[in-house]
């Protein structure tokens, strides 16, 4: 790996050592929290107060400021988990395993939020809580994929072997992600087509789009905070008997 500059590779090597990562996460979390709160405040203010009422859907469209970022996150985290899985399998990096398994419950949570908010929005708009449409169903399948990852990890005693199994599963399951993403184009069903990611010109007004993007970034920061906290806990659990954990405990008591 000589083509990677030395400082960069040193950074990665150091970050992947558990005690260093633990300290780094501790240092970053307050800053991330501040950024998250600012973005969340701005996004919610813009979305719920400044943005105009939709001419067709009235005020109930505003749920997209939660629903759409959560749905994006649900896909994003799964892809991220697959990447972590690849890293964990190829380079046997402990930290990638920890990040992978810490991401799973968060991703499942976002998927659940996307499903629930979608259902709440569907009742006034489509007149039904649930339809078996391609996107809804594939989002539900995504939830099951997350649950499969979580329960497979729970079922295997030896945690390093469990992480390897989960990595394989995450990599295999990632084939479902494009199916979910393109479901709106492939099947012509009830869920509306994409409005934001159309390359040429988003068919959503700027005053609505900006808060949506703010919320999306805020959710990314929320994920970072949550995954760092979860990874810290997972590291402590895995390395109970190691020197740095003992030192940490002594310092705190």
């Amino acid at each position, binding site marked *: 790996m000589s083509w990677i500059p030395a400082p960069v590779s040193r950074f990665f090597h150091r970050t992947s050592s558990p005690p260093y990562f633990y300290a780094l996460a501790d240092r970053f979390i307050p800053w991330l929290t501040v950024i998250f709160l600012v973005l969340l405040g701005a996004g919610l203010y813009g979305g719920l107060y400044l943005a105009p009422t939709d001419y067709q859907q009235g005020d109930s469209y505003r749920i997209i400021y939660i629903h759409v970022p959560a749905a994006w996150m649900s896909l994003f985290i799964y892809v991220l988990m697959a990447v972590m899985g690849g890293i964990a*399998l190829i380079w046997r990096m402990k930290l990638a395993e920890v990040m992978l398994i810490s991401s799973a419950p968060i991703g499942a949570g976002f998927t659940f939020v996307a499903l629930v908010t979608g259902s709440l929005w569907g009742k006034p708009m489509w007149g039904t809580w649930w339809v078996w449409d391609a996107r809804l*169903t*594939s989002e539900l*399948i995504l939830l*099951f*994929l997350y*649950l*499969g990852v979580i*329960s*497979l990890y729970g*079922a*295997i005693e030896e945690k390093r*072997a469990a992480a*390897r*199994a989960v990595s*394989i*599963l995450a*990599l*295999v*399951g990632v*084939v*479902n992600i494009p*199916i979910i993403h393109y479901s709106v184009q492939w099947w012509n069903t009830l869920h509306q087509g994409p409005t934001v990611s159309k390359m040429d010109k988003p068919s959503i007004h700027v005053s609505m789009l900006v808060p949506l993007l703010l919320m999306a970034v805020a959710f990314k920061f929320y994920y970072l905070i949550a995954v760092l906290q979860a990874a810290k806990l997972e590291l402590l659990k895995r390395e109970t008997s190691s020197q740095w954990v003992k030192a940490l405990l002594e310092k705190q008591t």
Partner: protein
Amino acid sequence: MPIVQAFWALIRRDLLLAFRRRAEMANPLFFFVLVVTLFPLAVGAQPNLLRAMAPGVIWVSALLAALLSLDGLFRSDFDDGSLEQMLLSPQPLSILVLGKIIAHWLVTGLPLLLVAPLLAVFLGLPEQAMGTLWLTLILATPLLSLIGAIGVALTVGLRRGGMLLSLLVLPLYVPVLIFASGAVDRAASGLPVDAQLNILLAMLLSALVLVPLPTAAALKMSVN
């Protein structure tokens, strides 16, 4: 032993083993027939309703039958230690795994082809859809064995992997189910089905190439 010879030897061994336990071999088939017969009892025996539901009913039942038979794919080899021997053998594990999957399909997937038309007649599936039903079964039941093999390989080391297996494998079966039952459904109403069949074929070919790799990796992890 050259790799091709090892591959055929493994298939022959698995088929022989299955043939010695004929009763077990028939179980997934009976299960398939039973599940299909439960539907008219549960939803009511109106011919129109059954005709509309036939593709879905047959495909869901095939899926469940495949799921039921999956556990046997590596279980007995794992229990008696021959799986470890396969891991230790100089042949690449992914080729051996492919052999085992093919043998599994010949034993559990192929018989479904013989019963499915009979059940389709029971459910009143229109005659023009029969060919498509066969084609989807030929293309997609190997897919079920292939995808399922990953799940089995991941859970074979666990004492109670059965429930977990269905949680892992069924979400991955969903695309197969959608395209296969969709094709039969379209054929029943006289529409062209080339797109669905092509997608199934593409999925089958890519699974044939890709699936043995994660399965072999998962087996190595499980046996460890």
